[in-house]
Structures are given as C-alpha cells and as structure tokens.
C-alpha cells in the first residue's frame, strides 16, 4: 500500500509555475529520491507536502487521508517530518531542548499543569526528557545534551536535525539535501545513518539530493525534476541512462 500519494500537485508563484503536475506513489517503507538542477522546484515540492505553502492545485494523501488544506503543524502531527536544506535548528536552545520541542503537541499536560508544576507535570516532563535523551544517545549526541545547538560542528548539526525530525514520531521523513556541505567521508557515514534510521524507526523516506553518489547508492527509485516538471522516473540504473536527465544536468558539476 502507498503511504504517500501525490496527484497533480502544482504551485504557481505569480507568473512562475514552480511545480507542474507533480505525481508520486511512495510505498510504505520505501526510500525514494528527488533530484534535479538548482531551481527545478524540488524544495517547493517539500514545502507543498508539509503545508508551508498551499498548493495551487492537486492533492497529497498520507495513508489515504488528504493533507492539502491542513495547516503545517497538523501535517507534522499526522506523521510527516522534514529537515531543511539550510539547517534550521533552534540555535539558541540546548541540544536536548531542540528535541523536546518536538513533543509539544503530546506533552500530556495543559496550562494549569505548567503553571503549578504538579506531580503529573513532573512525571510527564521526566518521560519526555528520557525519550529525548534516548534519541540523542541513538544519534551519538548525548554528550552534547546541554550545549547550545548553534555551537555544534556542522555534521552534528545535521544529525541533530534528523534526530529532531524523528522526535515528532513520523511515518514519513523528508530530507532536503542532507549531504549538502559534506565531504565524501561524511557522505558515506550519512548513507549508513539514513539506512539505519529507516530500519530502526520503520520509516518511509523521501529525499532531495544533489550528490548523485548518495542518491544512486541509497534510493530505490528516483524522480527527476527540471523547471518544475517531472522529466524522468525510475530506478537509479534507468535514470543514469536517461537522455533527458543527462541533458538537464549538462554543465552541472554535480554529475558524478
């Protein structure tokens, strides 16, 4: 069964058609990739799925339920989590608090509990802290728990962002250029991390990437966008031989 079904998704900014008739069937547990030159509309697709922008047309269904029209935070609560191309951590907050924010809609206490700091509140906060810390441990960030997120080195910030996304308890994880700014060794580690995360959390993953090596290694199927349109779709092997893809990437330095 498909976890995510996107049908004829389109987005127009003024005169610019940023995304045109985007379609996607993402089976439960799959790991698919979305590639394309700069400005092809990839991040816009993520923004449409996660509700940052309302689409001009089309539908997005998660496990058969429509997401279009829901506010972004409701979409997250339904089980869609994401990371950002340019890391968007809560820089001035501690690493642990970055994770804890993800529990905001299931804290199990309300305003009165927070005002009084009663026994129920303390028990719930305790549980949240334990779960958050456990996540940090899984991502080997536990020793950093009380440091400010902005003080972490780049690679750890990327890891923290993925950990934070997982803390929302998603079914679908969207990764926007997770390997941006990474050296080849780090990319290798990232590939392992993503594979491991998918196994451990039984996730469905959809990722945008520029680095072909990562996409080819990792993704089961790949969709290619150019100027807002889907120009190819298939297995990595099919994509590397596709003439239109090669044309779209001609002159792009990422092709490897």
């Amino acid at each position, binding site marked *: 069964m498909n976890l995510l079904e996107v049908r004829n998704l389109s987005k127009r900014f003024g005169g610019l058609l940023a995304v045109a008739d985007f379609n996607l069937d993402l089976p439960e547990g799959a790991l698919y990739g979305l590639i394309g030159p700069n400005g092809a509309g990839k991040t816009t697709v993520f923004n449409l799925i996660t509700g940052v922008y309302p689409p001009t047309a089309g539908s997005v269904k998660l496990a058969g339920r429509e997401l279009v029209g829901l506010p972004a935070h409701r979409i997250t609560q339904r089980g869609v989590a994401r990371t950002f191309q340019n890391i968007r951590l*809560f820089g001035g907050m501690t690493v642990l608090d970055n994770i804890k924010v993800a529990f*905001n809609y299931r804290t199990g206490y309300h305003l009165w509990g927070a005002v009084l700091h009663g026994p129920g509140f303390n028990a719930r906060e305790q*549980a949240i802290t334990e779960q958050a810390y456990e996540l940090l441990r899984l991502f080997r960030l536990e020793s950093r728990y009380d440091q400010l997120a902005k003080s972490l080195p780049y690679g750890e910030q990327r890891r923290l962002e993925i950990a934070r996304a997982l803390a929302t308890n998603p079914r679908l994880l969207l990764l926007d250029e997770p390997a941006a700014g990474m050296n080849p060794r780090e990319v290798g580690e990232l590939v392992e991390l993503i594979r491991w995360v998918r196994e451990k959390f039984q996730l469905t993953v959809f990722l945008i990437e520029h680095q072909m090596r990562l996409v080819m290694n990792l993704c089961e199927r790949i969709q290619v966008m150019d100027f807002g349109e889907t120009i190819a779709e298939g297995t990595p092997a099919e994509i590397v031989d596709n003439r239109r893809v090669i044309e779209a990437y001609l002159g792009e330095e990422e092709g490897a």
Partner: protein
Amino acid sequence: MHTIQPEWQIMRDRLRLGWRGYAAAGVYAALVILVMLAARYQWSIGSVELANPYYLHNLTLIGINVILVASLNLVNGYLGEFAIGHAGFLAVGAYASSVVTLLFHQSFWVALPVGALAGAVVGYLIALPAFKTFGDYLAIVTLGFNMIIVNIIQNLEVIGGPRGWGGQPKMTSFWLVAVVAGLSLIILRNLVYSNYGRVWLAIRENEIAAEMMGVDVMRYKMIAFVIAAFFAGLAGALWAHYQQYIHPSSFTYLRTTDLLVMLYLGGMASLSGSVLGVTIMTVLLESLRGVLSQFNLAEWRMVISPLVLIVIMLTRPQGLMGNREFAFVPRREEVPRREPARG
C-alpha cells in the same frame, strides 16, 4: 508507531525546583517580613528609618513594575516579538478594577481578578488580528491598539474621560504587592520551564522549523500574549488602588517605553534580568531625583531612561542577563549518572 523505551535510570530530584529555589523563596519571604516588621516598629539606624514610607513606596512601585516587565518579557524576550502596547493592558486593568470598586461598589478582592481577566480578554481580542502580522508591523499594531484604548477611555465620561478618575479605596499595600509579585514570578518561571517556554523560544529561534515540529505557532503566540496581558491587567488593578487616581495619559507609549528600558537593560528571556532591570532603573532614577534637583536640573532626569536604552542596544543588546538566570531560577537539566544499563 514506535516508542522509545528508557533503558536507564535518571536523577529524579533534579527535575523539581530544587533546594536553591526553595531557599530563594524563603529568603524572599523573610526579607518581606523583615521590611514589614521594620515599618511596623519603625526600626532605625541612627536617625535613618529603615523602612520609611518613601522606601516602602519605591519598593511597592518596583513590585508592580516587576509584574509588568516580567510578563512583557514573555512576548518580547522569550517569544522574540516586539510588542509595545503593554501600557494599554495596564490601563484596562486599572480602569476595569476601578469600575468594580467605584461603579459597582464591590470589594477590591473582586476587582483585582476582574482587572487581570479584563486585561487577558482585551489581550485576546487584540492578539487575534495582531499576530497576523509580525516584526515591526506587530509593534505598530500593538501600539495602535494601545492608542485606541487610551482614546476610548478619554471619550468615556462615566470613567472620568480626559480628566482622569480618582477615589479608589487604598487597598494595595507593600505586602500585597510583595506577595502578588512573588507569586507572579513563580508562575512565570514555571511556565518558562515547561513545554510553553520551550516552544516560545523555539518560535523565536526559527518559526518555520517550530511549525515543522508540529507547533501551532499562532496558538502559542496568543497564549504568551494573553498571559502577558493578564499580568499587566493585574498590575493595573494594583496600581489603581495604590495611587487612588488614574489618568489616561499615564498609559501611553511613554509608559510602555519605561517598561521596555527596564526589560532590555535586564535582558531578554531572563526573569532574573527583569527583576534586576526594574530595580536598577528605579534606584537610579530615584537617586538622581535628589541629586539633580539640587543643581536645578530635575527636568534632565527624563533624558536618562532613553539614553540607557540606546547605550544598551549599542553596547550590549542582550542586556545584563540575556538568556541567563540566577542559579536558583532554572530547572537543572537531568543527566544519567552512570552508563545506562542495557536491557
């Protein structure tokens, strides 16, 4: 759906306020009682009376301003917005409570919560449209509502209109302000060290990322704003029944600016800072009052506050205590003491 099972034991006692917090609360209570004893029995060192009416008056004003500044800090510090209409909610609290005592002849103990609730209700009504904007525009919208509130009061003859309104019973005293300010600080501190405080900071740090964490950003902004307005209304009720006279011109944006100076001097997102900022500015301005009037320069006192604000912004924009607290305020983050036992 997965669940993460905790595999280790955690230090539980650290979760609570801790002995430092209780000690601080105890010291505060002891100080308040000492001041009251000193006032009651007129303790003095030499010819100087320790708790003379002038000192008590200033301590009372500090208490009221602490409630105002600490609550404004929720919106301007933790949430990171720039709202400049706080004096409007102060006015709502002052006038609403006076309506209860003067027009309905009810007890002050009814008027006090009514003032706070009126602040909260008006805060809610203003927050609904105001948070459709952000940044400089939010500042303007909140200021605009402040001006409208004052303008409406000026046009309501039944509550004194442009002439002001007096005759409230003197119900606010030093000890009442001390208790209310202390409780307000505890409540605000508890909120800040809960999911609410975490989410407010997250919105300040990155609104879109917060939204992607499932945060209903609008709702959390409204909660912060309404709570701030609630406490401003509370302070207004205290103020009206302390001064026994209120005038629309006391609630313009000049009043808000005084609060902003104290807030930013103390530091954004710091309750300790708010207390510190209020205290320093009050002591500074009061001690200058005597000095300057000796040299016939009393008018120049009012130049000090804006200068302090400008100098802070240019040299130390985070304020004295920005994002930090005295050790007894925060909840300590708990860590496993030993390597987790694997199940």
